[in-house]
């Protein structure tokens, strides 16, 4: 998904692009929409920061930062008490450790295997024919989470389909899937020695079932921003704002790109 946040004093536009791999490269459209919402032209934007998987491929961005820095920035802005951030995205999951001053001091990421990312849920939801928006609440109805014994997304997909045919309730399967992903996430972020407050962000933060499983397995309370999808983009915007302010203070020129809304190739 592509998200755009336009910032002035406060957020003046925030847009979330459509899901699905086919749309990932249409990021420029999302930008257009955001500009429309803010009633601005791209020339009027002072500084543009890109983040996320496709950050290097955004032709009109003036600077790139990784999701780790941006999520941390965005989250600390929203939750100054944050010490541990778990970002559950479609490509990967990251754990970020923050110190008292809001600085990133350590982080972990999973390897490139869909089984450890939000995509796992997408694939299974698709197999079960339920929409992403509903998986969380559906799974919370379960009292007997199913055991998902396969790790690989593809094998798990097969397993879930077979269990469904055998009559295992949908909610139990979804709960099982959330347990399984939460387990993998936990194992990874435990390397950071999780401390309160724990914030979950990224698309996974919209999934209440996953959040509950995570909270149980971590043995920690979890906070979620109101709009978890945009914290990365928000952080990027905040980073941009800082750069602009610093340049103004020091009276140095801003290095910017040509403001052309070209197509974006997302990796």
């Amino acid at each position, binding site marked *: 998904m592509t998200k755009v946040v336009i910032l002035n004093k406060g957020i003046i536009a925030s847009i979330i692009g459509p899901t699905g791999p086919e749309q*990932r490269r249409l990021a420029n459209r999302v930008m257009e929409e955001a500009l429309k919402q803010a009633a601005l032209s791209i020339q009027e934007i002072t500084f543009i920061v890109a983040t996320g998987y496709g950050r290097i491929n955004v032709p009109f961005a003036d600077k790139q930062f990784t999701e780790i820095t941006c999520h941390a920035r965005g989250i600390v802005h929203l939750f100054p008490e944050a010490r541990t951030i778990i970002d559950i995205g479609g490509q990967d999951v990251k754990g970020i450790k923050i110190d008292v001053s809001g600085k990133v001091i350590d982080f972990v990421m999973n390897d*490139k295997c*869909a089984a450890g990312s939000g*995509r796992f849920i997408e694939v299974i939801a698709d197999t079960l024919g339920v929409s992403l928006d509903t998986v969380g609440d559906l799974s919370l109805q379960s009292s007997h989470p199913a055991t998902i014994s396969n790790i690989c997304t*593809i*094998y798990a997909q097969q397993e879930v389909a077979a269990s469904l045919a055998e009559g295992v309730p949908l909610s139990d399967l979804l709960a099982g899937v959330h347990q399984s992903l939460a387990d993998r996430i936990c194992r990874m972020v435990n390397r950071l020695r999780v401390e309160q407050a724990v914030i979950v962000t990224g698309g996974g933060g919209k999934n209440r079932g996953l959040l509950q499983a995570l909270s149980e397995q971590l043995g920690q309370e979890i906070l979620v921003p109101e709009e978890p999808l945009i914290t990365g983009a928000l952080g990027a915007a905040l980073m941009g704002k800082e750069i602009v302010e610093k340049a103004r203070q020091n009276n140095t020129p801003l290095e910017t790109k040509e403001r052309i809304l070209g197509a974006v190739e*997302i990796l």
Partner: protein
Amino acid sequence: MVFVLGIDIGSAQSKGVILDDQGSLGSFECASGGDFKLTAERMREELLSRAGRSVDDISRTVATGYGSKLVIFADEIKSDIVCLAKGVSSQLPTARTVIDIGDLYTKVLRTDGNGSVHSFILSGKCAGGSGRILQVIARVLQVRVDEIGELSLKSKKRVEFNTGCAVFAETEAISRLSQEVTKEDLLAGLHRALAAQINSLAERIGVEQEVAMVGGGARDAGLVQALKEIRGHDILVPPNPYMTAALGAAIIARESLTIQD
């Protein structure tokens, strides 16, 4: 006259063969769907109707494949390794190494031409090296899976493609397409990478010639070609590589009848 059935319930596709003393009376394939029991029933009906026979005419049924345990009317369940060996040796008696590229797993086995297996190996816990990735990419390219072989053979400039995860292959393919890589070159790259992976699996049990390729992946001329290039020798593909395990199952059914006689 005896009639036997061989039924292979795969994770994606189910395959069946009906045989009499002389040879095959027909075969059938269909999607496995979610309910394997139902699929098996339907498979039996289709095969019977193709051969113009009724359930009572069937002396023996052997089931194999991912969903074989759900073929409740089967007289015996056999592992696909043994069925593949039987199937291949009936069609290609000179084959000593058989590579089966299925939907979830790739399997390699060594046989002696009589249908005996000497050793075998299965791909591991990651679907990245099996046939599923072909389906995934076909969907991204918006072509049918049976078209990708021909397309790949047309490639002039193969790209480097990391197979890795079967799920993320989708994302990678999309990004490549947006970099104006052609479908043909992309497929050729994918086939090359997949073939390399399959080859190293095969090498782990040692490859003896001749080599036969079967299963869904063997229908893919691009993949077969890529493997030939990597191995530097020819590879045999039986007339209907998809049916090999089902055929083997049917042969086993027929053989066990003659032994009992």
